[in-house]
């Protein structure tokens, strides 16, 4: 059986956690065998390395739409060390009237309510911040963002959603 999990020093004498693919030795110096690596760094010009971050689920739930109406969900705003607010990536599963399930990635977000992109059965808008926990305008304390689903035909029976924080740099 191959060694697949390393927590400690690797072949370069660097502390890390690494996981290899099934049947592959995690001690290999070939990065292609790894499925997880805490030592992902990148000095390529033009952007800031993510450091190997992954999606982090910050909130999930199920909403029940009604055609022609809206559903609203609030989530604690995501703010980086520079004080910039970032809109989350939103992943939805739409259960349609035919009981089919289709995965649709949320792709529209913003602070101002200026336009919309259509998803299956509904379109969504995400606001990164500016609200309190009950939907009023933020004045102090924790800021919240908002996701609004506006339903279109065909109506969906339910929508499961995940709000994901991602390490996007401008």
């Amino acid at each position: 059986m191959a060694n697949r999990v390393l927590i400690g020093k690797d072949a370069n004498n660097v502390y890390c956690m690494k996981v290899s693919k099934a049947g592959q030795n995690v001690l290999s110096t070939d990065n292609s065998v790894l499925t997880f690596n805490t030592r992902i760094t990148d000095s390529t010009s033009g952007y800031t390395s993510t450091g190997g971050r992954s999606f982090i689920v910050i909130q999930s739930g199920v909403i029940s739409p009604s055609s022609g109406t809206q559903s609203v969900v609030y989530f604690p705003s995501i703010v980086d060390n520079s004080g910039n607010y970032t809109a989350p990536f939103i992943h939805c599963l739409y259960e349609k009237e035919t009981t089919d399930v289709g995965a649709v990635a949320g792709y529209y977000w913003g602070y101002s309510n200026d336009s919309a992109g259509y998803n299956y059965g509904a379109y969504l808008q995400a606001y990164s911040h500016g609200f309190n926990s009950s939907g009023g305008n933020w004045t102090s304390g924790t800021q919240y963002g908002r996701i609004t689903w506006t339903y279109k035909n065909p109506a969906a029976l339910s929508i499961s959603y995940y709000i994901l924080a991602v390490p996007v740099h401008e």
Partner: protein
Amino acid sequence: MANRILIGNHPNYGYGCFVSKPGVNVQGANIDDFLFASTSINQNQFLMLEVIPLTYGGSGTVTVTQQYANFNKDTQLVLVYTSAGSGTTAGSATNAWVANTFGAFGTFTITNTKTSTSVGTVTLQCTAGSALTYTPVVGVLTLEV
């Protein structure tokens, strides 16, 4: 408090490293209860996730490229979604992102190439659309497809 981290021999999934959701005993957890399981066939980590600006004049073809460290991964899952174009504002003093609906304004092709065992290259090409500086977010995950 539930035991949430197991490094060793899981009763159902064998040797590995496992982390369960809050409130779930890692030893009794099923696949749906794991935050992390080293036995997964892959993990999702971003090799790159960045806004790649592209200024399109309204005609012809414009191409931009961005290289990244690919850690010798073969064809990876590429994620593209949208953020602000220069024609929109955040509506706030801080940098909240505002979307341009990608397909409504331009026609784009995204290509991800394994340039070498250490370098990958993402090529973003616009062939049609409104004259605008587009700022799509382009992500490259470690997930090999």
